């Protein structure tokens, strides 16, 4: 690896498809989410700069470390969350813009990296010594174990159909054979992945770990200042990377033309809209209901998708 590549890699990670770009777009999408919620509730809603002002204010505030907390875990957790969100955004968006830049197994790496923000929440909540944090961390752990299983199985369905663990191959497969959702197994896997995405983003009806009205933010309850800002940034960044990832995996291939990229943007926005509409029209599930849903119906559906993929449907 020479100096130029290193520089390019740094630029990718910190500026263009990475931290700066994804954070800006993600915060904007957070505003869209809040505005749509306000319109549905017949309010006016916040101005467009609201999420940026929130983050700026949080960064300016002092960060308190509660007495008796495990300071190392408490401080490392927000950094882990942002790192995971940044790297997964880099991999997804580079696969969109330049599929040839992928490396062998980038899909597998992405699956692990995208779980990092949730795991950071567990670490932060458990280290904070707050009972709310501890309960939130336990719930988040339960949720990770349930939704990641369905999510993985839906990804494996795609891997079986394309016989590859490379994004470029998956895009090429969809370019020649049509979008993944047009096959039966692909459709089922897509629906499963949409459920899992809602849980991964921590949106209603699956915001069980944070549950503002009963757990006052769960793992985030003890975070203040920059720690909270980093968690919110990582949440905003996953709001870009995960819908983009699903659009890439299931909703058809992309060529390197402006029209095709515009089409990708529309698919991305469609997934986002469904996500927001589900969020504002559903109430929170209880933990046992969510676990029953993920380990029951969704698990059966995703296993069915794998079997269908194996017999070639």
């Amino acid at each position, binding site marked *: 690896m020479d100096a130029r590549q290193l520089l390019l890699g740094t630029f990718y990670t910190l500026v263009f498809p990475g931290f700066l770009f994804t954070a800006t777009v993600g915060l904007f999408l957070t505003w869209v989410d809040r505005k749509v919620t306000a319109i549905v509730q017949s*309010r006016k*809603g*916040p101005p467009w700069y*609201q999420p940026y002002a929130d983050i700026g*204010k949080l960064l*300016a505030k*002092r960060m308190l470390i509660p007495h008796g907390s495990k300071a190392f875990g408490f401080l490392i957790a927000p950094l882990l969350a942002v790192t995971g969100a940044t790297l997964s955004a880099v991999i997804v968006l580079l696969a969109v813009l330049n599929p040839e830049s992928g490396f062998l197994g980038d899909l597998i790496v992405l699956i692990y990296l995208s779980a990092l923000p949730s795991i950071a929440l567990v670490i932060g909540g458990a280290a904070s010594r707050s009972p709310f944090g501890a309960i939130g961390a336990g719930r988040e752990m339960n949720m990770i174990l349930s939704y990641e299983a369905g999510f993985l199985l839906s990804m494996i369905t795609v891997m079986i159909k394309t016989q590859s663990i490379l994004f470029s191959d998956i895009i090429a497969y969809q370019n020649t054979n049509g979008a993944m959702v047009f096959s039966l197994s692909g459709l089922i896997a897509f629906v499963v992945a949409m459920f899992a995405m809602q849980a991964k983003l921590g949106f209603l009806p699956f915001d069980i770990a944070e549950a503002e009205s009963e757990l006052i933010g769960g793992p985030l*309850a003890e*975070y203040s200042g920059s720690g909270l800002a980093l968690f919110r940034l990582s949440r905003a960044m996953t709001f870009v990377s995960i819908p983009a990832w699903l659009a890439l995996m299931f909703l058809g291939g992309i060529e390197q033309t402006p029209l095709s990229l515009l089409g990708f943007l529309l698919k991305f926005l469609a997934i986002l809209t469904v996500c927001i509409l589900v969020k504002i029209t559903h109430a929170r599930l209880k933990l046992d209901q969510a676990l029953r849903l993920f380990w029951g119906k969704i698990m059966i559906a995703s296993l069915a998708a794998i079997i269908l993929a194996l017999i070639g449907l």
Partner: protein
Amino acid sequence: MTNRILNWCFKKSIWVYHVNTGSCNGCDIEILDVLSPYYDVERFGIRLVHTPRHADALLVAGPVTRQVRERVLRLYDAVPDPKLVIGVGSCTSGGGIWHDSYATCGGLGNVLPVNIYIPGCPPRPEAILYGVAQALGIVPKQVEAQAYIEE
């Protein structure tokens, strides 16, 4: 420059934590009114948060009873700097009808440094909004603090 940006951010995004220090619930109901969709304070970036760690402003109602005094002080320490304290109602302003009771501290000013008082029993939601805006410097103050110096 950075300072100016951060100041602007603070003015545009203020998260309040609602504290009851022994109030009769009149002020609490008015505070909840402010946060309802009718007044829609999210327009101004004001949000009700559920933990003092996330808060920028404490919206305190009640005359601060002796029992709750220690808790209010701990709550104040739990809010990260910079922070505002806003007293809502006649009781926080000067004890209200409990100003000389043995059971209260006779107003929030005897316990915490208060940034702004919003008098009224209870104050109207518009008055609370106006008070918060004054505390943030969004709206100019009507009366300046004055001190009499003997010549």
